[in-house]
């Protein structure tokens, strides 16, 4: 187990190194400099800024300095917000995105698993058909459409929730729902199909032959197997929700990291773009690793590579 984790962590670090390098050179390859503004700054100011941020050093020197800082988890100063560093931004904005993302996955699981089970048990009955239509709809709608729809009905028409901004629990409801739509449909569909498959399996029949009631058969023998694919998808799904929240955060004017990411691109805030890209990569890698380990724990058949049996 330990050997496996070590190996995966090393591969992860290598991946992040490559990603950091690519973003670094891509940023340098974009025409225009970080201090190009609609209203041009004067020459001396730019020269001073370049000197301050070591932008007049040769590129390889800048690259080494940057990578060294990244290795220390220091993503450098923001070129746009003079008084704050990229790290300050991550510390302030990431918790907001994380809370919204995490809660939306919880909502998706809490609704998706029971809905999936119900659809499987009541296959082709009314409940299943309604669920089918809804999940197909939600899976195919982009989340900004869901977000706008929620805002229009819940805030504008019914006036039961505040339309935007951040701070009260009520303000969190719509963003969470908007982000939960996709994972919810995904979990429901996945739960249904894996439940149907498992209910048809030989070992579930064995359970019945042993004298298990339908209840035990469904919730003990079938469920524990049927939920495995959901666990597998959990990490990537969570990472996807975190990194896919840009637009929803923008719509509801939530001060999350996704919002900041979009802004930093318009602002040509190189360190911010690079810092956030690397941060997101780390998140993704960590989630996938955690998922794999969790999987190995609940599914006894999975032996982690390099693990002695």
């Amino acid at each position: 187990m330990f050997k496996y984790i070590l190996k995966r962590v090393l591969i992860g670090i290598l991946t992040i190194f490559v990603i950091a390098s690519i973003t670094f050179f891509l940023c340098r390859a974009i025409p225009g400099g970080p201090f190009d503004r609609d209203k041009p700054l004067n020459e001396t100011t730019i020269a001073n800024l370049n000197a301050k941020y070591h932008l007049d050093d040769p590129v390889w020197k800048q690259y080494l300095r940057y990578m060294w800082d990244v290795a220390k988890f220091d993503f450098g100063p923001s070129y746009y917000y003079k008084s704050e560093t990229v790290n300050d931004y991550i510390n302030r904005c990431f918790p907001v995105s994380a809370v919204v993302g995490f809660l939306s996955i919880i909502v998706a699981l809490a609704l998706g698993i029971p809905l999936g089970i119900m659809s499987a048990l009541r296959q082709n009955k009314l409940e299943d058909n309604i669920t089918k239509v809804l999940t197909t709809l939600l899976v195919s709608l982009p989340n900004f459409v869901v977000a706008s729809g929620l805002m229009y009905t819940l805030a504008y028409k019914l006036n039961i929730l505040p339309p935007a901004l951040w701070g009260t629990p009520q303000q969190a409801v719509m963003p969470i729902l908007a982000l939960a739509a996709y994972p919810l449909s995904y979990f429901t569909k996945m739960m249904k199909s894996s439940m149907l498959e498992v209910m048809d399996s030989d070992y579930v029949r064995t359970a019945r032959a042993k004298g298990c009631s339908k209840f035990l058969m469904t919730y003990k023998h079938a469920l524990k197997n049927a939920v495995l694919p959901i666990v597998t998808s959990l990490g990537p799904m969570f990472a996807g929700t975190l990194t896919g929240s840009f637009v929803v955060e923008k719509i509801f004017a939530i001060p999350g990291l996704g919002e900041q990411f979009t802004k930093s691109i318009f602002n040509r805030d190189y360190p911010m773009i690079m810092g956030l890209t690397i941060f997101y990569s780390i998140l993704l890698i960590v989630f996938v690793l955690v998922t794999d380990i969790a999987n190995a724990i609940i599914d006894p058949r999975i032996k982690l590579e390099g693990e002695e049996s």
Partner: protein
Amino acid sequence: MSKLLEVKNLSTSFFTKYGEIKAVNNVSFDLDEGEVLAIVGESGSGKSVTAFSIMQLIAKGGRIVNGEIHFNGQEITKLTEKEMTRIRGKEISMIFQDPMTCLNPVFTIGDQMEEVLKLHFKELGKAERKQRCLEMLDKVGIPNAEERLKQYPHELSGGMRQRVMIAISLLCSPKLLIADEPTTALDVTIQAQIIDLLKELKEEYNTAIIIITHDLGVVANIADKVNVMYSGEIVETADIRNLYYNPSHPYTWGLLKALPRLDMKENELQPIPGSTPDLLLEMDHCPFFDRCEYAMECCRQSKPEYYETGENHIAKCWRYHPDFPKEA
């Protein structure tokens, strides 16, 4: 003395969008305590459906449309699902063809064994349950029982898993064990071991066994009597010796000819030509008619009844009609 199991005129059908599939059609047989009945027949002849009908675990879309099943003096087709769960696993237990997929992959062998005891012997404590499981594993010839209890199914070989299945099925000392092709998925040497094991256990516990197979050779030294099934019907019933030495039905002749023998050269096996009839069609002729070498005009025109062909020996074939001219 009353019989342990009496199946009377059992018919089980599947209702599909194409129509009614008569998987089991008017089947009757009985079984004494400690007796071993083999059900043989080609794939699709209704052997498994017969077994699942007794267990009342018929797959979706299927149900018993006619007939009675008396078990231990009780008509079990009339029981509620809840009453049936008390019989399954305790009075009648079942093992299946593919031991690789029949155990739940996410529970340990110990969990799965103890489960039947928890279900049917609620009064047993944890230690007692474990003790019984250990004894049973020992009985079915699994070494290191203590270790095995903690293992997951994927850590065991196919033969071992089938032994575990047998152990599970015998934990509650059932009166009847139904074994649906228990050896088909196993290597030939393991097959013989499993059959020997079943035979030993049967003698020890006096369990009646219904053993389903499509290979008459496998059951030769365990079965007392045989039902030959074809197209959802029993076409011949006989004691095992009679069936081997004095088979009546042309279909049974075919089955016996299809068996490999030691004195045979390679490629000498003779499968029965043709295929089983479509169970969706209403049949008013002998179902074996179009594959039978001996078919006569009357076979095409109407279905034969059962005729006695010897002691405890009946066959559903016009050749045994009292008016059929006996060969000299």
